[in-house]
């Protein structure tokens, strides 16, 4: 019987297009198999290893650890078993043991970049982005052609607001794979955060050119256009995002926002209503609808919508701020001041000026 060994791979993405944490099974290459065969691994070790993989796939991580440990016990020079056990520990949030196994892998096989990567993933998942970046650097030293290492590092840098470093890694990915749409999108986002909006637009457009159904890129493009006050282009981009996914409530909310900025208050309200239909607990839509009513000077309606938003989120500073505006115009200055004071407490700085300048302590 032909022996088939499998490796468990846990990563944020193992292939382009997959997102979030995934568990996958990797069939070993012929070369890897030959190497293992050459080591004359006992059949019991192999059997225990394969059972470990099965347990891992069934998310029975404790059992997986037991089986991989058994395999290691039979055949100590077994880096794949250490790697998989390390990943099983990681799944059980036992970081210390996971790290120990990954270190063992590297000690046994200095060319194993996967162990670094898995270690980096643990750091990343625990928001220790700088540690993740450092370890990914080691993975890249060993293997400088693996896209996912660069991508993971770009994400970590992005989250640390090291946008320029993120762009460097994303450019490396594009060089390796010029059709990798995600890299263009994320590069656009890095530029957006750097407030280099023209470059952001260019990158988002490239992302869309690589993937015509890239909803997120359309949405980001729309947001960037809105920040540039190019409302018609923004509305078109959001419309394209919505066309890809009719239930994309974020797209409707963003389009409503752009319509409001463009002076189309009725159109904005229609979009916010659509959001509320798709996601009735979305407080932002109620607050935004209130904003449209404020623009239309329909103060009672604005108060009503803010009330809904506050009911959904009693700590929603903007809703208190906006309700204050509407109440002031209803000649209920005292109540407006109460709302602005609450908004200040919730971190809305502008409300502080309104509170002070409205002589809220002296009606």
């Amino acid at each position: 019987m032909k022996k088939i060994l499998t490796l468990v791979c846990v990563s944020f993405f193992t292939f382009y297009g997959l997102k979030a944490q995934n568990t996958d099974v990797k069939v070993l290459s012929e070369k890897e198999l030959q190497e293992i065969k050459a080591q004359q691994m006992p059949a019991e070790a192999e059997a225990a290893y394969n059972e470990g993989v099965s347990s891992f796939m069934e998310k029975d991580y404790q059992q997986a650890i037991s089986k991989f440990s058994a395999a290691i016990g039979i055949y100590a020079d077994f880096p794949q078993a250490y790697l998989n056990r390390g990943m099983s520990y990681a799944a059980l949030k036992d970081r210390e043991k996971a790290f120990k196994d990954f270190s063992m892998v590297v000690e046994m096989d200095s060319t194993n970049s996967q162990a670094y990567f898995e270690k980096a993933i643990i750091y990343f998942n625990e928001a220790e982005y700088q540690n993740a970046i450092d370890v990914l650097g080691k993975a890249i030293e060993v293997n400088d052609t693996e896209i996912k290492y660069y991508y993971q590092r770009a994400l970590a840098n992005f989250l640390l607001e090291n946008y320029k470093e993120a762009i460097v890694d994303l450019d490396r990915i594009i060089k390796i794979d010029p059709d990798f749409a995600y890299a263009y999108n994320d590069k656009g986002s890095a530029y957006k955060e750097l407030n280099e909006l023209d470059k952001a637009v260019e990158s988002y457009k490239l992302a869309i050119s690589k993937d015509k159904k890239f909803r997120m890129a359309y949405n980001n493009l729309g947001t960037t256009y809105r920040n540039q006050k190019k409302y018609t282009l923004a509305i078109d981009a959001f419309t394209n995002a919505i066309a890809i996914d009719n239930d994309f409530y974020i797209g409707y909310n963003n389009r409503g926002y752009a319509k409001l900025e463009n002076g189309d208050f009725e159109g904005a309200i229609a979009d916010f209503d659509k959001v509320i239909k798709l996601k009735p607990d979305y407080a932002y839509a109620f607050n935004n609808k209130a904003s449209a009513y404020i623009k239309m000077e329909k103060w009672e309606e604005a108060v009503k919508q803010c009330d809904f938003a506050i009911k959904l989120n009693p700590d929603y500073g903007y809703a208190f701020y906006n309700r204050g505006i509407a109440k002031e115009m209803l000649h209920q200055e005292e109540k407006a001041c109460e709302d602005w004071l609450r908004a200040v407490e919730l971190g809305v700085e502008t409300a502080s000026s309104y509170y002070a300048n409205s002589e809220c302590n002296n009606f």
Partner: protein
Amino acid sequence: MKKIIPFLLMMFVVLSSLAQTDTPFDKTAFKEDKENLKEALKYLKEGDKYFYALPFADYKNALTSYEGAYKINPNNSTLNFKLGICYLNTNFRTRSFDYFNKAYSLDKTVSADIKYYLAQSYQLNSNWDDAIKFYKQYLTEGRGNKNANADLVNVTDKRLKECESGRTLEKKPIRVFIDNLGNNINTEYPEYSMIMNADGSEIYFTSRRNTTTGGSFDESNSGYFEDIYFAQKDGKSWSSAQNVGAPINTKGHDATVALSPDGQKMLVYIDDNGDGNIYESIRTGDAWSKPKKTDKIICSPYHESSAWYSNDGKRLYFVSNRPKDGSMKGAPGDRDIYYVTWDSEKLKWDNLVRLPDNINSSYDEDGIFVHPDGKTFYFSSKGHNSVGGYDIFYTRMDEKGNFSDPINIGLPVNTPDDDIFFTMTASGRFGYMTSFRKDGFGEKDLYKITFLGEPKQPLLNAEEMLLAGMDIIKQEKTIEPIIKNDRGELALLKGTIYDDKTKLPLFAKIELYDNDTGELLAEFESDKVNGRYMLTLPAGKNYGIAVKADGYLFHSENFDIPKGSDYTEYKKDVYMKKIEVGESIVLKNIFFDLNKYSLRPESKSELERLIKLMNDNPNLKIELSGHTDSRGSVALNKELSINRAKAVVDYLVNAGISRDRLQSAGYASERPIVTDAQIAAMKTTKEKEAAHQENRRTEFKILAK
């Protein structure tokens, strides 16, 4: 179609027969109704007696009579014209339109000036386009018409400009609420010329109500003699207005002019048999002194009607119709604004200056009000781009003392009629004015204007998913709008000064310094009876405040009010400590460089006060202590506090104070005024920062005396 034409013709004939025609008061129109004619003629005769009275027409009584005639015959062009004129000369000026319009429709030649009056009544109703149309027609026709009133022809160009201004300003009205002050203040009688202290907690105004002192009626202008009334803030409303009484109010005309920002001095107008002068009264507790005529440089033989103190009390602005050349000879001119400066050596007002021509137009100015921010100056003018009558304008004085060109405060505060006697709270949020409006209690009433500022922009939320590799939905950063605060860039400081031990109110002197220059900006006093004080601190300065009373340690406060600051009101009761062993005070105007112990130059005036105290009390031995907030390293804070205390001691020693009278100590954050727990419980970052600021301080304590 054939059937429709005869029908339309018939309708035209019927409607034409129904159209009003000019109906005379004679037998031809009253063939069957001689009694009514007789009665109407009686009304007309009575009305004409008042209408043509000399030296002044009595339009109010003329109106009553003419209205009697009007009930009998409303379609007489001359009667309608006269009613229009009467209404134009009452408080119900906008009603003149109906009568002028009818007079004109009955007879387009009822008067050579009918188009002027019709235009004026359109103007009073803010119908700018029609007003312009008729003014233009009147100007074209009136110039060649001997019967036209030459005075009216001459002012028509001005009226046209007013209407153009109205048309322009109407496009961008200011956002305000205008509310009647209510029946605790306003009555069926005239109320006007309201003045108030800086925080708006007390108001004074003039009224011609039947409770006037002496209860006399002034026949010359058909009203009770003016008296001054006051009211106080009672929660959210006003207490019932009370007559201020003697010695301010007399049997004659006594009218409000101005109140100092701290409410301790009042300027009063006294008629002085038609001369019109400005008097000053000083407050002690709740009592006002007998008004004293201000210096001759102000009270000329000409008419002075309005005045206001500058924020620091060093200038007095006033209005006078004295000749512009300062000759004090010849006929009065139009009303202009002047100011005089207080000479603290001669103890009198001096150096008369007429404000420049960009403020004083060739028309009347009146109703001055200097805002507590010290730089914004409100006044009323019939010139500039008034939309009719007096309009309220403001100008800003720059640091060199130059006044910007005046800006019309805008519609709907300004109307085509007279808008005058405007005041504003320190915050710039509330203004008060006199107005005659439909919702009033009768005659002129006092109104509160709430300035809403530019439309407040709502804040929206959006979400974005920036990273394709992660399912992170993130709230998009929203840039909150920057609030442009063009009014009320100042702080108001008020409170009461007490003796720390007895807790009784204390009279004290308050010195206001510019810490950057060391200049003494102004001196104030607390009320001799109740210890109250109030100061306005215009933005743009780091203020040092020293409160001094005989036998007490001085008390210092620091208020750094940067330019563009939001209006802030501080209530600060001050407890003065006697010079006794164990007493300590915080030296709030001692400043150090950040994380260093080198004294900053702004500390100079405070240090000088300390030196004076030590020199005045040669047996005094004190401890100077440094305190930090609880943030940062404890060791570093300790070192910093020790060094800062030493720096103050060294300064005093260099100034000649014996070192053996001085001890220094550094307590870091060991003795906070506000504890960390109290700070943690505070809601806003601003409050927390203020608490940390309070903990960072230099103190001195008396060890021996």
